[in-house]
Every structure is written in C-alpha cells, then in structure tokens.
C-alpha cells in the first residue's frame, strides 16, 4: 500500500508537468526521435533524478516506498507529452524483480534500474498469445542442474540499452495453465538469444526475441519452480493500469486540442465549432474521455488492497473500456482536424498513433472482454 505523503505526490506531479512542458515539447520530441531513436540517455537521467524510477519500490530497495498507483500521474504526463522512453517496459521488469525478491544478480540489477544506471525489459507476449500473460508456449526444458529455453516472444516494450530480459517460459502444464510457468533472468547477449529490434508507429522501440536452446542456471529462475504466474499476472495488471493513465493523458489532450482547433478553423464563413454535428462529436469525445478517467480513478482507489485475481479483473475492465474510448476519441480528433490531422507535421496524428498502440498492447479490448466473460462464466 502506498505510503507516499501528499507532499511527495504533488512533487511528482509538478516535476512531470515541468518536464513535459519544458523539455518535451513536440519539437524536442521530434529531435529525440531523430537523434536518440526516442530514448535519450539524458532524459533517462532526469527520470532517475526526479525519482520516477523509484516510485513503486520499497525504501530498503532504494525506492520511494509508493505503489503502482503512485506512477499514474507520471504516466498521464507522459501521455500528454507523448514520451517515448521505455518507462513502462523497464518498470515492469523491475517490478518483477522486486516481487520475486530477487537475490544476487537480480537484486543488483533492480538497484541499478531504480538508480537509473541500468535497464532490463520483460518478454511476455508470444505470436499466438494476444496479450494473455499465461498463454506461454516458450519451453523451459530441464538440462542438468539448469534449463534450456526455446521459443519466441514478440512485441517486447524494448529499451535499446537494456542488458537483461526477463522471460516467461513453461516447464510443465498445458498452454494457459496457471501452474508450470517460470520466469528467467537472461542476459541479452547470451548465446542463442536473437533480438530483432524495430521502431514502432508511435516512436517507441519494440523487439521480437527468439530463444534457441538458451542455457540458463537454476539461479536465473526468479521464483519457485512453476510458480511465476502470480507475479507475472500482477505486473501485467499493473502495466495495464499505467497504460490506461497514459491513454487518459492523451485523450484529455486531444479533446482540448480539437476544441481549440474547431474554434479557430473557419469553413463556410463560420468557425467549425458552430456546426452542431461537430459539437455533438466533441461532446461524445468528452464523455468517452471523462468516463475512462473516472473509471481509472475508481480503479486506482480499489487497487491497493485488491488481490492478484481482483486486480486482473479491474485491469481487464479498464482496458476493455479503454479500447473503445481511445479508438473513438483518436479517430474523431483526426476527423475534426481534417487533412491537417493526417500529417506527420502536426502532433494530432502522433497522439492518434500512440493511442492505437495502446489499444493493441497487453491484450486488445476484445481479448479483455472475452477474459471478463470467462470470469463471469467460471
């Protein structure tokens, strides 16, 4: 549960607002994409100095002692600024290390991530998993005192400077079984690890990873054998909560920018905002955005103290609703801007593309609705 003081929370919120407004303007962002592929080392240093990398970690680990809900203000700000640094992906890896109470190499890595010196990523999604964190086909075959990992991971939220990847793999059980999943800490330059990195449509970096009989020791397994599902589920839910906050930041920005544009753009001798059909469209954008923001606030209140299973349901509700709302708001923002909204030059299209990514990441709305139905039916 969060132990952050009100003072610390306001400080975090102020610092992210200052960063986005001062150092992450649309032009800064463009330059960052060109020069650093969207992942500037100096920005990352700022993240560390501002304490953003330390928020959801215990003080004895070097953290601020908050929980996952304390990162939501940062994520909203990152939404407004369209920040492309791999905050979400690296934090997911760090949360796994923390929840697994990693020792040795893992503990050092966690301390390094919190201080901003090191980075790791989390490889969970597979070609057929559609974001279901328990649909694990990657195998961990016992081999001597260790294992050999074989399989393929896709859509990793990637960091170009990560040294390690946390990989989920199955040592027993059927596809989608809760039991039998392990989590391994693997160096990215280990023999048999093949990383295909790529830029994504939203300026973030993604990667597909192939594991071809990668030898790992028992010490690289982060949880008791076959017992990793619980922390993987928890971090999946936490990431969904954070994505939703980012989406709210984007959608609120799009509503504001669209309203401002239709007030100034004139066609047929009047401002676009005079047309009732467009007024209703903007009212609808506002309703969708505010509904999602309210659902996020309520979810955050219910989050702390909920168990892993309850958090998964809360996260699925949020993501399913997000998918619908984000698509409407993003598409209408472009429609109301007209041709200019279709250009690379204006920020609107970039907000739209990030929303599109968020819609598809960590399970799309249809997958989450199906998961919710299965929960109801069970």
């Amino acid at each position: 549960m969060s132990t952050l003081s009100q003072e610390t929370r306001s400080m975090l919120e102020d610092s992210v607002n200052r960063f986005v407004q001062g150092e992450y303007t649309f032009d800064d962002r463009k330059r960052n994409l060109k020069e650093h592929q969207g992942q500037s080392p100096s920005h990352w240093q700022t993240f560390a100095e501002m304490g953003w990398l330390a928020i959801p970690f215990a003080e004895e680990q070097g953290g601020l002692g908050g929980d996952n809900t304390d990162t939501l203000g940062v994520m909203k700000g990152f939404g407004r600024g369209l920040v492309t640094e791999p905050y979400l992906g690296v934090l997911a890896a760090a949360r796994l290390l923390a929840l697994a109470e990693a020792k040795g190499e893992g503990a050092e890595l966690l301390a390094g991530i919190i201080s901003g010196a090191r980075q790791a990523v989390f490889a969970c999604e597979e070609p057929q998993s559609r974001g279901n964190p328990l649909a694990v086909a990657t195998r961990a075959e016992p081999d001597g005192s260790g294992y050999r990992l074989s399989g393929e991971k896709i859509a990793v939220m990637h960091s170009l400077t990560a040294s390690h990847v946390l990989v989920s793999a199955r040592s027993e059980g059927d596809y989608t079984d809760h039991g039998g999943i392990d989590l391994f800490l693997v160096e990215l330059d280990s023999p048999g690890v093949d990383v295909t990195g790529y830029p994504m449509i939203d300026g973030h970096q993604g990667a597909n990873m192939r594991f071809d009989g990668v030898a790992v020791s028992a010490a690289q397994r982060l949880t008791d054998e076959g017992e990793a599902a619980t922390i993987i589920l928890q971090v999946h839910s936490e990431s969904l909560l954070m994505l939703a906050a980012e989406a709210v930041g984007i959608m609120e920005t799009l509503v504001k920018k669209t309203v401002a544009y239709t007030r100034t753009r004139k066609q047929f001798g009047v401002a676009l905002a005079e047309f009732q059909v467009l007024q209703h469209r903007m009212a609808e954008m506002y309703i969708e955005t505010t509904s999602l923001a309210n659902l996020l606030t309520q979810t955050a209140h219910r989050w702390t103290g909920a168990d892993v299973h309850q958090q998964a349901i809360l996260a699925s509700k949020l993501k399913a609703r997000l998918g619908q709302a984000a698509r409407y708001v993003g598409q209408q923002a472009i429609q109301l801007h007209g041709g200019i909204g279709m250009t690379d030059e204006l920020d609107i299209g970039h907000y739209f593309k990030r929303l599109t990514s968020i819609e598809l990441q960590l399970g799309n709305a249809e997958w989450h609705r199906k998961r919710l139905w299965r929960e109801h039916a069970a």
Partner: protein
Amino acid sequence: MNTELNTFRHQIREFIEQHADDEILEAGRKTTSFFPPFDQVMKWHRILHSQGWSAIRWPEEYGGTGWDVPRQLIFEEECRRAGVPLLLPQSISMVGPAIIHYGTDEQKRKHLPGILSGENFWAQGYSEPNAGSDLASLKCRAERDGDHYVINGSKTWTTYAHHANRLFLLVRTGGAGKPQQGISFFLIEDLTDPGIEIRPIIGLDGVPEQCDVFFTNVRVPVDCCLGEENDGWSVAKYLLEHERGGGTSFATTFRHELATIRRLAGRTGDGFGGFLADDPVFQDRYVRLHLEVDTLEATEEVFAAMEKGSPESGPMSSMIKITSMETIQRITELAIDVAGTPSLALQLAALTVASGVEPIGDDDAVTLMPKYLNNRAASIFGGSNEIQRNIIAKTLLR
C-alpha cells in the same frame, strides 16, 4: 451468355498472367492506400493500354472498351484476384471523363491520348489551406493578361503532384457573386515552370502521398480553360461525382481485403488456445462487413447505370462515398484488431518495392497498419463525410 462471360474472364486472366511481372505484383502487394506505388502502377497502365484496356469505362469512341457492366466487373475481379495495382484514378476516372464531357475537340485531341497511354499523369489541384470541405471558398487566383492567365496562390492535398507532369486546377477568375461563381477549371500542361513549387507532405503512415503546390506568377495560355470561364464549378461538380462515386468497383477491392483478414484470422491464436477465425465475435464482425460490401456492390451497380449529372446521381454518389469509405475504414480496423501488436512495427523499407527487405512477422500483416492509418483520410478527402451527409439531407428536405 454464361459461356461468353466465362470466355471473357478467361481472356482477361490469361492476359494478366502473361503480362504482370514480379515488380508489378510486388507493387500490388505493397499498396497501402488508394494510390499504388507510382512507377509500377504506371508501368501496368502502359501495358493495359497496349491492349486497349487502360480506360475500360470510357466511351468506345474515345478509347474505352465498350464493355457492359458485368464485363467491367469481371475485369476488376480478375485484376484483384491477380493482385495487380489498381490504376490511379486522377487521370482515367477524374479529369478524363470531364474532358470528354466538357472539352473542345482540340482539348480532347490534345489530352485524351496521353491519359489513355499513361504518358501523362494528372494531379488534382482542388483543396487549399483554407478551402477544404468548403471548396468554393478557394482563393488561388488567375488574372487575365492578353492571351494568358497569370496564376498566384496555393493548393494542398494534391495527391502524387510530385510524380505528375500535368495538373487540373480550380482557380478564381471572377470577382463578385456567390463563391461558386467566378471559378474556372484549368488544364495545366507544364509543371516545370519555375513559378510552380511542389512540396510533398509526409502522412501518418510515414510516406509522402499528398503535396502542397505553390504558384507564383505562373503564365498559362487562355485555352487551358476547360468549360466556360467562370463556370468551372459545373466541371468540378461533374468530376467530383466521378471521384465520389468511384471509377472502379470498391466492392471488389474490399472483398480482397476481407479475404486477407480471414486468412490471417485462420492462423492467429485467440490467446486461449483457439484461433480467431473460430471466435464468434470475429465471425460476426467479418460477416457484417461482408454484408456491407455486398450492399455497396448493389448500389454501385445502380449507380453505374445512372446518367451522371442527373438529379439522382449527385446524392447517390455521396451515398457511395460515405458507405464505401466508412466500410473500408471498418475493414482496416478489423484488420489491425486481428493482426494485433505485430502490426505496430514501422516497416517502411519492407514496404518499398524492390527494397529486398523482408518484413518482420506475417507477410499478410505488414500492410495492415499503414492501411488503417492511411484510410483515416477516407472520410475526409473528396469532400468530408459530414459534407456528403449535408448534400443528402439537402436533397431530402428540398
């Protein structure tokens, strides 16, 4: 009759198989908008022309085929089946029919052969920075100076202007009266004039397709005017009907898109151990869209038999514009939902013809995100769908 049509279909199929080379087929596969890769689509245009098939809907006397509607549809079906790029609409389906309808004998003689052969490619200069949906408020001006006009102003969203060697243009030549009055329709033959500057615009999908075009004291001969001076709005409206109503059958193209999605769904997991194609939610969305396409085809058939410029054809072309463009938007939405996160990779090199770069992930999936992004413009261009609905409502309430 059926055997005749079958023989016809067979001829078309054989011709395409023999003449569409790998590069043309690659361009067809890598097409992510209504405008295929330029060099290859023009190459295919010239090949079709050698057979007399570049403008299948034109009247026979002007170089069309004289085919009836079923034959036109068979031709398009076979083109989609083979995966060749669809010919660019600006010359063949837009300015061509306008020249046939409004042009002097001299203008027809001068311009139609180059359009048919593919020697010339015409871009469309309609929209301006402050005249989009409200096209009639355009400001680009042409002043009469002896036997010439002098053009000053700018155009935007001019698709493929950076590839074009001809341009058709709406300019203001008159002053007073309603905004629709005093507009003229020009046929510009020389885009190398130093007073013309063409700047490509990068789109959401990361590639240049539209352009800004700037005119500074560009002199053109007075006989470049199509139709009467100051009556260009009639020409523009006639042409817009062709644009909105579609020169080609959208339904045939859209079915092809749906087939790709269905194939992909058949091999994409649902995350619970099954496949998406077996998911009732996918099935319902897929069948709904198929029905939308079938219905669109029915409307297209009615429209094809309708006289253009008649009181009914205007609203009907608006209806086709709305339904076709919103259907393709929904199809591309289903496509990214099926493709999922693999569609988020930005793969500009793999989408470039002859780049030799292999796509990351499923071959069928690589074009789906660019199509989704690009097609957001489908409810904006050619008169936004809001404007089209106004046109229909106006007719209903008249």
